[in-house]
């Protein structure tokens, strides 16, 4: 247990400079893009005049120097104030808390599904390398992995929502339905099937391949040979020895993929009109909304750091060799 606490403490401290760098880089990146929030806003309202532009720039502090603005941002960040969104005219924190749950739900479900399915199918494929089953799964996963998520999303929407009408085309829940409790949860689940499916299938393919590769490697290891020579059943060898060993790289992958999935959700959220984090980020960029974008990036960075920490904890639990001071569990 001590080990876990030490790990968490160490990570918390080391993540501070990471966050600072992320904020500064985001700021500079957005700074180097041509046009500012006022340009974007004037366009969205179909024109204006020079005095409107000037007074808006003044109101948002956009007429100040870059360093002054960065300093202002950091000083408000120190008090956990993420600032005011120019494009939405609301506090950044409110916007983020409004959208984050939807994205977490989407990503969480997609991660769980892709990890679960991917590792299970990976075990099936890796249990008998080069069998027909293995070849089918490997080829299938390769094809799936090559498909862009937006295409899969559109096809799902056309087939299951428009043609068959089994599921809604878009949205996170039935609008203004007045549903509550379990009925609402079910409604949300129904809306999530297509986007989660589109997102999960592609990552599932990745997990499948990693799992299969890990298993293929484990087959050649001495302890597996030993288990076989002991005369253990094949199922037992596959599950207890080979798969468990192959699971380790998969867990590492999980941490890495959480960041990628956050990116993938941008596209899926747009196609399925889910008011989530990814869509908010896209709107922040096109609106040149620096405070909002930085808020989103900071929260995403924290999320990724947390997920990676979790992964390390799981990793330590799975592999006793990580952190050798602890006795085997």
């Amino acid at each position, binding site marked *: 247990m001590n080990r876990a606490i030490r790990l968490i403490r160490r990570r918390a401290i080391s993540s501070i400079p990471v966050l600072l760098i992320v904020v500064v880089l985001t700021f500079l990146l957005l700074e180097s893009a041509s046009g500012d929030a006022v340009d*974007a806003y004037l366009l969205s*309202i179909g024109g*204006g005049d020079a005095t409107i532009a000037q007074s808006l720039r003044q109101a948002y502090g956009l007429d100040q120097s870059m360093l002054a603005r960065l300093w202002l941002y950091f000083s408000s960040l120190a008090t956990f104030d993420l600032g005011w969104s120019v*494009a939405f005219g609301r506090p950044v924190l409110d916007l983020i808390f409004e959208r984050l749950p939807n994205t977490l739900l989407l990503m969480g479900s997609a991660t769980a599904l892709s990890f679960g399915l991917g590792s299970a199918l990976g075990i099936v494929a890796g249990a008998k390398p080069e069998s027909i089953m293995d070849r089918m799964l490997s080829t299938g996963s390769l094809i799936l992995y090559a498909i862009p998520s937006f295409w899969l999303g559109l096809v799902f929407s056309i087939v299951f929502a428009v043609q068959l009408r089994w599921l809604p085309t878009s949205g996170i829940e*039935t609008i203004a339905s007045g549903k509550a409790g379990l009925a609402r949860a079910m409604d949300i689940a129904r809306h999530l099937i297509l986007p989660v499916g589109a997102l999960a299938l592609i990552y599932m393919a990745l997990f499948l391949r990693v799992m299969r590769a890990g298993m293929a490697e484990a087959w050649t290891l001495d302890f597996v040979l030993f288990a076989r020579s002991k005369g253990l059943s094949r199922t037992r060898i596959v599950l207890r020895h080979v798969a468990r060993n192959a699971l380790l790289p998969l867990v590492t992958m999980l941490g890495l993929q959480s960041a990628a999935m956050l990116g993938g959700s941008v596209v899926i959220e*747009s196609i399925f009109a889910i008011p989530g984090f990814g869509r908010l980020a896209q709107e922040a960029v096109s609106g040149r909304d620096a405070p909002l974008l930085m808020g989103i990036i900071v929260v995403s960075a924290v999320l990724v750091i947390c997920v990676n920490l979790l992964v390390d904890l799981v990793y330590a639990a799975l592999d006793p060799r990580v952190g050798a001071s602890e006795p085997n569990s």
Partner: protein
Amino acid sequence: MTIATLSRRTLLQAGGALLASTALPTFALAQGAPAGGRLIVAADSEPKNLNPAIVASNGVFFIASKVVEPLAEASFDGKDGLAPRLATSWEGSTDGKSVTFKLREGVKWHDGKPFTSADVAYSALNIWKPLQNLGRLVFANLEAVDTPDATTAVFRFSKPTPLQLIRNALPVVSSVVPKHLYEGTDIATNPANVKLVGTGPFKLTEYKPGEYYRLTKNADYWGKGEPKLDEIIFRVLPDRAGAGAALEAEEIQLAAFSAVPLTDLARISKVPGIKVISKGYEALTYQLVVEINHRRKELADVKVRQAIAHAIDKKFVVDTIFLGYAAASTGPVPKNAPEFYDASVPTYAFDTAKANALLDEAGYKKGAGGTRFSLKLRPAPYFNETKQFGDYLRQALAAVGIDAQLINADSAAHQKAVYTDHDFDLAIGPPVFRGDPAISTTILVRSGIPAGVPFSNQGGYENKELDGIIAKAAETVDTAARTELYKQFQKIVATDLPLINVAEWGFITVARDTVQNVSNNPRWAVSNWSDTALKS
């Protein structure tokens, strides 16, 4: 039952039952709509400020025009193209220095307070004139608004102001907001800018960011028997393909402003129960314009500009880029504005030989590789069509020896490069004609406009004669004389080509055929929808 008679619904139910048995106990077939009418509409954006008195733009009007009403609305058959709303009549004085509005009686705000001339005076003096993006121009010389009684408002101007302009601008610039909620507050940050309170047929009752706006029937609406609908829901659908799919799946009943891409129209128009309607946008005609930077030596030569005009095949643009949903332009005033439109202006037929001859004449002979000179071409990213026209123009110019370098950028970057930094030679813009040349057309060619103003004379064009006509028209009270000035204006623009008008287009509405009274006025999508109904 044979396979052929097995309906989609039956399959749906079977599929539903199958799914329900495994994981999902509840399974609603349609998005539950109460009888009598919930209209669900696709919306592609969520304006930050929903107050149409401050932000006069189509994005805001689309939702807000059902809640907050203007003094008058555009009409296909009304006198002067107008239908009364909060005002029942308007009359200008002969010296052009005042306009008297008679206001509708018995109108109530959504919070129950009576609507009076004080609200009109407050909106005009404190919002339209000082704050509104378009009203600033129209009401620049507004000095005072007298309110002799609760139903009369007299606008007083410091300089003669043409009634024709005021009239044409009414639908766009005259949204009235309640004085009692705004007086003494900071107008820009007033919560009523988002939680609208108006006099319109619908009340804004709910807004779920990223999901929908919910408008419900105003039972106390002044229009008899209106509104017909119980509810309108604007569902936020950012993806354009998504709007078409949602229409087909009967999740929404209407998508306006070409939310369904032009390329999908041929297919979706064949879906039973779906109508494609191109009417209802006549008073908000968009124009496809080649913006020219006159600071560039070659482009300052009128012969070069004529050559560019001759190099463009407008018919090809209309047929191929707009798939026929547009018309070729002759000049800066579109055909949809018959009050001002003049067809007898110089035109430039598609003729590459002539274009080449003009360029030779101007002294830009073809060099090695057949190129005369290079230009920086920036198509606006706001519409698919402006981007596609950029690709086309590059090819069209190459055919006459002009090498155009395409630079694509997103909205904010385009806005800064073209309108603030003037870092372009040619740009492609989609300005809107809003009923009167003085509202947003003369600004495209008038000289002396500061940098940073979107949809203005960003090319630095200067023509004293044209400036003179624009200035004179701004103060000409006599309607016939003023109209004549704008005919001259069109001739000069079409002759000297400060910019090149290529095509003009309205948007497309796609609706289920159960929606009635669609597109029955020239600003339908941004009007109040009080007579829109759903066939049960």
